[in-house]
């Protein structure tokens, strides 16, 4: 039998039993749609988290006070029991590293902001002019912190969007004097609203020069030093150099931890990637179930069409011809099911994106390819058994059932 004839024969056989065909196509399409939608969800979650992390700033290296590893006893430990503080000068020293583009020291605390009889609690971040570009914040009005000597902070502040709204309402905020803690500061800039995201919510943040914040909180220590490397490739170098530089300044003690945003990102990426895989695996079970259903349907078809098979044999069909015809039918059922499922899945993912615009629910290519090929493969594999059974039927017995 010619290939086109085999395919046409299989198609006619499939459409000849609409109920049976519809059900098995439906089962297969649900399986494929499940793979597409679930992986779209999983991969969407991964992209969402990665995207949020990326928005914290690019090529970021973060220096934290305190050791990360556990060390054994050494004489240095015996002399200084508490780790040294991170200071503004530590941060300043990192500016001279060749792989580093920008450095921003960060001191944080909570304080009150008051203006025109209104008072509210705020998070205060003490930093320098580079803080805003490193963190990818945007300024909606006015300017950022001034470029100046880090140890001599001028009395200015950049406030978050929500604070501006609540303290000033419709009145202009730029140039106004506000009280933050016991200081009077001039508002020079307002941050653009960012909404809720991972990390700090900048809408309720007040940014002041770092030395001012330290004086306000009566401390010399920094919460973090944010370092921006020259490029993505320079991140590792910047990390090592920052560690060495601080270690030197701290008399050879490794009392800081240096992490890269990349590492954090990679961890999340891996974690959520594994999650997506797991979800895809679960969805693949439904594909296997659909495959078994196709097998069932084809077995029923063989029984239903026993007489026809006998007739085909009497008319000179070889076992191979009959096997191919039934296999083609099973393949067609699963191919159409896979296609319909793919469309359904894309539709579902599209609907998800419409309802949750921030959530990038796109199915990854590998999942789509794997889902479609698994569907086709299961259809074919589970089609083999019924096809062989049909081909092996005894023509006399088969004809008697007509």
């Amino acid at each position: 039998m010619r290939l086109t004839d085999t395919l046409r024969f299989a198609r006619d056989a499939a459409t000849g039993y609409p109920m049976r065909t519809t059900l098995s196509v439906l089962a297969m399409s649900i399986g494929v749609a499940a793979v597409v939608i679930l992986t779209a969800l999983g991969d969407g979650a991964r992209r969402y988290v990665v995207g949020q992390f990326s928005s914290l700033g690019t090529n970021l290296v973060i220096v934290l006070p305190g050791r990360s590893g556990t060390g054994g006893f050494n004489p240095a430990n015996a002399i200084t029991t508490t780790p040294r503080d991170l200071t503004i000068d530590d941060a300043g020293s990192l500016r001279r590293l060749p792989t580093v583009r920008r450095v921003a020291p960060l001191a944080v605390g909570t304080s009150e902001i008051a203006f025109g009889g209104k008072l509210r609690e705020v998070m205060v971040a003490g930093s320098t002019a580079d803080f805003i570009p490193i963190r990818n914040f945007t300024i909606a009005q006015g300017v950022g912190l001034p470029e100046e000597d880090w140890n001599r902070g001028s009395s200015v502040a950049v406030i978050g969007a929500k604070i501006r709204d609540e303290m000033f309402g419709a009145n202009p905020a730029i140039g106004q004097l506000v009280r933050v803690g016991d200081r009077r500061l001039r508002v020079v800039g307002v941050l653009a609203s960012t909404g809720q995201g991972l990390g700090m919510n900048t809408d309720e943040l007040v940014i002041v020069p770092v030395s001012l914040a330290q004086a306000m909180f009566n401390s010399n220590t920094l919460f973090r030093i944010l370092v921006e490397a020259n490029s993505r490739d320079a991140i590792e170098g910047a990390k090592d150099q920052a560690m060495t530089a601080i270690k030197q300044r701290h008399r050879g003690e490794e009392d800081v931890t240096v992490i890269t945003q990349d590492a954090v990102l990679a961890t999340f990426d891996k974690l959520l990637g594994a999650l997506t895989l797991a979800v895809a695996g679960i969805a693949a079970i439904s594909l296997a179930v659909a495959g078994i259903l196709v097998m069932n349907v084809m077995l029923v078809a063989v029984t239903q069409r026993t007489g026809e098979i006998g007739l085909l044999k009497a008319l000179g069909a070889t076992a191979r011809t009959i096997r191919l015809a039934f296999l083609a039918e099973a393949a067609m059922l699963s191919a159409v099911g896979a296609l319909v499922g793919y469309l359904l899945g894309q539709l579902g993912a599209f609907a998800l994106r419409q309802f949750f615009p921030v959530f990038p629910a796109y199915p990854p290519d590998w999942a789509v390819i794997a889902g479609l090929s698994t569907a086709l493969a299961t259809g074919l594999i589970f089609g083999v058994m019924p096809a062989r059974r049909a081909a092996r039927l005894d023509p006399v017995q088969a004809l008697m059932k007509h």
Partner: protein
Amino acid sequence: MALIELSGIERRFLLGDTTVNALAGLNLQIEAGEYVAVMGPSGSGKSTLLNLLGLLDRPNEGTYKLEGRDVTTLSPDEQATVRSTRIGFVFQSFHLVPRLTAAENIALPMTLAGISPAERNKRVAQALKDFGLDQRADHKPDQLSGGQRQRVAIARATIMQPALILADEPTGNLDRHTGEEVVNLLEALNARGVTLIVVTHDPGMGARARRQLVMEDGRLKSDSRTDDISILGKISG
């Protein structure tokens, strides 16, 4: 050389504990172009014989030579090729594929044999004309009358131009008038040289054949030709 040569054919079935001899010690020769009716009561082995002749079944013992070639030892696929090219079947209940049109049903043996669509269309058009089915080409079997269905089945059986047509009660499901038509068609084919073997219950139809075989309990009870020959022998001897 005879078209069909059966010698020492045994066909046994196991029914529960007992072995049934559907065919026992059967020897038979049929020449090309003969018109043979196989008759006998139910269970006499008529259908088994027909299945055997059509290579749908294999004997337990004995040899079957078709056109001088031993076909009992052929592989199933080789047998399928012989069925495809040399044998046409006509069944009591027509055995048309319900989802295919009359034309597609007629073309089915050619489709299975892998003949090109152009050639198929040519031969089907001719067959439709020959069997008076031109107006019914695109009708499904359930839109055809019994006589039309059997005509489609006969057209299908002859489309590969076989040497042998095996008909199992071809008029069994038809009224007398349409049955007559169908028999005329079959006889017309025989007149053109196709060997025709008909299994029938109907003595009237059996009588129309030039040679009658009567089966009983898996054996040949009588064969009008050997009777003639034995008579001939008696006369000459």
